[in-house]
Structures are given as structure tokens and as C-alpha cells.
């Protein structure tokens, strides 16, 4: 390796290290400070969080419930829709898909008012349904799965359909095994998105604090236990990412997302 190349590699490494430190620094600070309470090092802050502020965990379970339900239902809805757009030929398919993409491009705030009016008309405001139903329909999920399903050979689908004479079995044996990694990646992304919801909860559940997710309540946690609260909030997401990091990065790389 020439000296010039070595220098370039070093500079790149230094720049990336600085960026990595910038990203890791806040998390490291929160983590370290969560073990400090009244100037002493230990688990007192966690004890105070879990015992004196025991309702904190109720909100934690609210978040777990919302994120899990949204992720599961979103996948169940998105798989057939994506299959429809990827493999079934019908009139207006491309126009309909274009509309899907259009909705995906819209920021959440743009659809907030229509969503609010709809939920109000269905008497769903201030209930857990208001925090889950709008997020169950994700154009992004449909888009992602469609990209994956397009790579499944039509012959495989036809053959399985003839062999099994059942659409459900065809899904099970021909489609799902091919998009397993995509489903895992999608589940993580949707779970993270639901775990971090703030605006929806604040708007759709204005008068019912008890059903709030942890992401909203985090700001109201007493200052002396805020760092421990932050760690408990971040922990599931970080662990999920660490556990499925390979699947996630491979999926993103293979489809250039």
C-alpha cells in the first residue's frame, strides 16, 4: 500500500471514529449516569424508578403492547397486499401502487387531521385502538415486501399453486420462505417506529394519560431517575437491533434500501 493510500485510510478511519463517538456519546452518558444517585455509584436510581415510581412500568407494558400488536397486524396486512402489487396482474395496479407510494411520502402530520376525524367518528379517541389502528396500515411495509416478492420466480408460485390447490399453502411454501429475512427486517423497523411514537399518542389520546406509551411519559419522569428511565426505554430497541443486526443490514444491502 502506498503512503498516500495509507494516509487516506487513516483519515477515513479518524473521521468515522469521530462520527461513531458522536453517536455513541449520548447513549454512553445516559447509561453511566443511570448508575449515579445523589453522587453515589450503584443501582439506587433503578430501585427508585421501579419502586417509588412503580407506575413507570405500566407505561412500559403499554409500549410493549402497542409495538407488538402494530408489528404483527401490520405484517399480516402487508404480506397479501405486497403480493397483490408484485404478482397479481389487474387493471389499475400501477396507479394504485403509485397512490401507495404517494401516501408513503406524506409526513405523518399531513394525515393527522383526517385520522383524528375518522377516529372521533368511530368513537375510538382516547382508547388503545386510536394508538394502534392508524399505524397498522403502513405503505412502507407494502413497498418493502413488494420489492422482495418481485424476485420470487412466477414459475415457483404457479407450480406450488397447482401442487397444493390452495392460496394459503402457496403462501406458506412458496412465498414466506423467500421473504423471511425481509419480514424480520420489517418487523424490527415497524417495532422501532411504534415504540417511538409520540405525536399520535399526544393527539389521539389527549384525555387519557393511562394508555400513553413510554415514549410520551419519559419527559414526565422525575429528574432524579430520568437516566435510568432512559436506559429502560432504550434497552429493548438496542437489544433487538444487536440481535438481528445481521439480518437487518443484509436485507438493506441486498435490496439497496
Amino acid at each position, binding site marked *: 500500500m502506498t503512503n498516500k493510500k495509507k494516509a487516506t485510510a487513516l483519515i477515513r478511519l479518524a473521521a468515522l471514529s469521530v462520527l461513531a463517538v458522536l453517536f455513541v456519546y449520548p447513549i454512553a452518558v445516559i447509561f453511566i449516569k443511570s448508575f449515579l444517585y445523589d453522587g453515589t455509584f450503584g443501582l439506587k436510581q433503578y430501585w427508585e424508578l*421501579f419502586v*417509588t415510581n412503580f407506575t413507570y412500568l405500566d407505561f412500559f407494558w403499554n409500549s410493549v403492547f402497542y409495538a407488538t400488536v402494530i408489528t404483527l397486524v401490520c405484517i399480516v396486512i402487508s404480506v397479501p397486499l405486497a403480493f397483490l402489487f408484485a404478482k397479481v396482474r389487474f387493471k389499475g395496479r400501477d396507479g394504485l401502487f403509485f397512490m401507495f407510494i404517494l401516501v408513503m411520502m406524506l409526513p405523518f402530520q399531513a394525515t393527522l387531521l383526517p385520522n383524528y376525524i375518522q377516529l372521533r367518528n368511530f368513537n375510538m379517541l382516547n382508547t388503545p385502538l386510536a394508538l394502534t389502528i392508524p399505524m397498522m396500515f403502513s405503505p412502507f411495509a407494502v413497498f418493502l415486501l413488494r420489492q422482495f416478492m418481485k424476485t420470487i420466480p412466477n414459475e415457483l408460485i404457479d407450480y406450488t399453486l397447482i401442487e397444493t390447490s390452495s392460496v394459503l399453502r402457496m403462501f406458506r411454501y412458496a412465498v414466506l420462505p423467500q421473504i423471511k429475512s425481509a419480514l424480520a427486517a420489517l418487523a424490527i423497523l415497524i417495532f422501532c417506529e411504534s415504540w417511538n411514537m409520540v405525536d399520535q399518542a399526544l393527539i389521539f389520546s389527549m384525555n387519557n394519560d393511562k394508555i400513553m406509551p413510554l415514549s410520551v411519559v419519559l419527559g414526565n*419522569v*422525575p429528574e432524579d431517575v430520568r437516566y435510568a428511565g432512559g436506559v*429502560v426505554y432504550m434497552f429493548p430497541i438496542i437489544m433487538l437491533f444487536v*440481535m438481528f443486526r445481521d439480518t437487518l443490514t443484509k436485507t438493506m444491502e441486498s435490496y439497496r434500501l
Partner: protein
Amino acid sequence: MKKVIVIVMTLFCAVILIFTFFGEKIYYSIHPKVEIERVSMMIGDKPVIPKSAVYSDESGDYVYTLSSSEGFSMTIYTVHKTAVMVSPCDINFMQGDEYAYLESGLGFGEMIVVMSTKGLLDGCRVTILE
């Protein structure tokens, strides 16, 4: 690496589950339960307080007053050691309860601890007996 992550996740879930079910119970079991009363009785022109509320040490007589603050999960009650001056009161007018004249140290209507299930310390958190 995966094994470590699984162990950490399992521990985390166990801690969360334990405190979800027992956090509130632990809070109420570790803090002393106290009975409180307002300084509101008068004999003649002097306020009286139950003798059971008055403690003594080398610095003199004191009572535990109660302060409250809105916590995240409930109202948090804290007791504070407050020095008082009391004088004997011979009148036992309520079913054997003994009272003492309050000379100084407390305001009228202030909350004081009259009974506690455990020993109290200045600044310790308590729960109120219903």
C-alpha cells in the same frame, strides 16, 4: 456474543416482570406507616397535641411533621423533625388519651405524626394509615 445478549435480555425481562408485579408492594412494605392528626384542638386559649406525637432527645422535645409532594406514581409523604415546646396538661378529656399544651414550634392546622409502625428519621418517606 449471542449468548451474552440472550442472558442480558432474560435478566432485563426478569427484572421488569418482578418489579411490575411487586414494585408497588415493595414501596408500601419498606416505608413506615403512620397515623397523622392536625393540630386543631384547643383547651382554653392554648392548642394541645397528643403526647404520643412528642419525642425527646438531648436537644429537647420534637414532633414529626408531614409534608407531601406529587410524585410520578402517587403522592409522596415525607416526615420532618420539628422542635417544639410543650407543657404538661392534666386534663384527660378523651378516653384516656394524654395531651400536652403546645407552647411553640407548630402552626395551627399543621399535620403531625401521632403513631408509626416503625422508627422514624428526619426526611424519611412514609405512607399514611387509612
